[in-house]
């Protein structure tokens, strides 16, 4: 475990939706921050530093928005960092904030991540094509669909697995008042009937574009002792290049290495039986079986069977994305921190209607770029070593 102990003592998020036209970017962030501070029982004097995570500046058309947001983030007069590691940024924001406490530099750190995609158009921002490049791809879905096809071919998965994940995550989302999409009566059949966007990925197997923010308060052992806390047992981050000869785009090495480092640091030898709940970054439904294998929850090629058997539903052997996950809400910069926060909420027993009973150990996972940035953390209801 790296250095001193750290724990999440409070989480907060906004009601994610397509367009939040009632708030400014500052107002959107403060909704999540104020909820996290209330959940943690802390006020501004207790916060030593602020870490902001957000995906490309092009989304909101502001260069280094932490500067204009300094007052709103309560950072004025304090240390302020801005993390940007593409789609995984929400996760790496949590990791960086945790390291500020684990290194003994600070005692209480506020981590915030947001995206207000309605300020522009995420599809445009992702497809700004420099000269000499040929615009073939079609947004994120077009980028990942060929690799989903490769997974299906490699694992022999039947075509309905994606629909099972989408129906499960969206029904979970209906239990979560903060989720953008509330589709309690979605079914595998209705997903399969939805329009094919980038074959093999269908409309209902694709995440929405959301405005949203998430915040967590991370504290040192002295602050977290004797109160409900989600103790950080391990964090991990790995990166690999976008494309290189012989790269495995289906189950990237960076994901495997990050998971291996994480389980080792957390003292977990059999993840599928020692982890009670996992919030995994699944923006396109097929990524659930793919990441189950990449993370070492199942053997290579077996992830889809685990999903098909209903093991990833609430009540299954390893509930995945009880919050509804990225398929139900996707404010890109915040999605990774939402995974982290939802994992903490589970072990804090504060996940409300989508609480997994008796959850003591939870995984938060985020990936970004061309499946090349990975940020993960494991949180537990007990202090590390006390388990």
């Amino acid at each position: 475990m790296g250095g001193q102990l750290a724990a999440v003592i409070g989480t907060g998020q906004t009601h994610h939706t397509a367009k939040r036209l009632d708030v400014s970017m500052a107002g959107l962030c403060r909704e999540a921050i104020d909820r996290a501070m209330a959940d943690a029982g802390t006020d501004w004097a207790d916060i030593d530093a602020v870490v902001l995570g957000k995906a490309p500046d092009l989304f909101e058309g502001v260069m280094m928005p932490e500067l204009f947001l300094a007052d709103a983030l309560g950072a004025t007069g304090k240390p302020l960092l801005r993390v940007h590691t593409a789609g995984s940024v929400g996760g790496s924001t949590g990791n960086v904030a945790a390291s500020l406490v684990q290194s003994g530099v600070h005692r209480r750190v506020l981590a915030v991540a947001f995206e207000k995609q309605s300020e522009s158009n995420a599809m445009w921002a992702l497809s700004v094509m420099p000269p000499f490049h040929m615009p073939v791809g079609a947004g994120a879905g077009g980028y990942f669909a060929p690799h989903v096809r490769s997974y299906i071919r490699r694992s022999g998965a039947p075509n309905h697995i994606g629909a099972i994940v989408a129906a499960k995550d969206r029904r979970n989302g209906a239990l979560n008042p903060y989720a953008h999409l509330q589709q309690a009566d979605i079914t595998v059949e209705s997903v399969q009937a939805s329009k094919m966007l980038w074959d093999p990925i269908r409309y209902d197997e694709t995440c929405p574009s959301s405005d949203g923010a998430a915040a967590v308060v991370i504290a040192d052992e002295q602050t977290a002792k004797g109160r409900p806390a989600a103790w950080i047992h391990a964090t991990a981050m790995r990166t690999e290049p976008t494309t290189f000869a012989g790269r495995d785009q289906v189950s990237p090495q960076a994901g495997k290495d990050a998971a291996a480092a994480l389980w080792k640091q957390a003292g977990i030898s059999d993840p599928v039986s020692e982890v009670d709940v996992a919030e995994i970054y699944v923006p396109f439904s097929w990524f659930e079986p793919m990441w189950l294998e990449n993370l070492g929850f199942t053997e290579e090629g077996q992830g889809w069977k685990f999903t098909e058997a209903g093991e990833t539903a609430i009540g299954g052997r390893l509930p995945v994305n009880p919050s509804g996950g990225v398929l139900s809400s996707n404010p890109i910069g915040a999605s990774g921190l939402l995974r982290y926060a939802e994992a903490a909420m589970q072990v804090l027993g504060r996940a409300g209607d989508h609480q997994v009973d008796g959850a003591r150990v939870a995984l938060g996972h985020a990936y970004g770029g061309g499946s090349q940035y990975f940020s993960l953390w494991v949180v537990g209801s007990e202090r590390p070593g006390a388990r």
Partner: protein
Amino acid sequence: MVTISSEPLSAPLNVGFDYTRSLGPVLGRFATGLRAHTIAGIRGSDGRVLVPPAEYDPVTAEKLTEFVDVGTEGVVQTWSWIAQPLAGQPLQHPFAWALVKLDGADTGLLHAVDAGSPDRMSTGMRVRVRWAAEPVGSIRDIECFEPLDVEPTERAPGEGDPVTMVTTPIHLTYQHTASPEESRYLRGLAEGKLVGQRCPACDKVYIPPRGSCPTDGVPTEDEIELPDHGIVTTFCVVNVPFLGQRIKPPYVAAYILLEGADIPFLHLVLGCEASEVRMGMRVRAQWRPRDQWGTTLENIDHFEPTGEPDAAYETFSQHL
């Protein structure tokens, strides 16, 4: 061999979007006020009237709520002279940037002063707002400030529902430069050649070549001309229209592994039904007419099936 001119290729890159911003309660009230020719400040925790109004206090981070209307005249706290205005600035003839402390405000508002020349600018001078012709609820409803000894131009305020949104066009131009390796590849394309480069460390052939091999961190070097045929490793059928799309969906976007290359690149597959495209299918490039060639992969309009038997999965599975 490809004619080498050392200068890397470069071309303009325009990044532009009209951002649609929601203002929230405080900035919304300020913008609505501007349209009506009034200026609202807000009282900070230290008692100072902040203009423009801030949503959250700079000292305590608390949400601020007490609005205080201020005057439309004020004092220049400091100024600088812009002899050659840049695109998008408030005035397109020489002007002064200034911090103007409006009567009743305690902080300076950053805006332009139309003084005509720098010697008519001085710290401490009084200036007044010159309202824009068509106020819409934006900081540009203040066209600029002007000295008091100038004939005021009467302009009517606007009205309507409270302002909640502002559109801020952001258009930036860059000069994009291709890497030296890419430039040789692009010049090769202009002559109908597909020129890859081999990494001296891992011997893999990259197309397009790389300024730095992603696994070894060294530039790819010796050039290899590759044939214009190969196989589809994997693909997707694009059914969704999107901004800047070149051809009408549905079309197949496929990873093409050229014979002799160690990495596929993305291109279009046409010349058959989308449903007929398969992983491992052998394809050949369909070049555009020579007179349309430029330094771009678009010289190849698309790839077409050759009709030869597909490649076995095992022969390309390591490229997925």
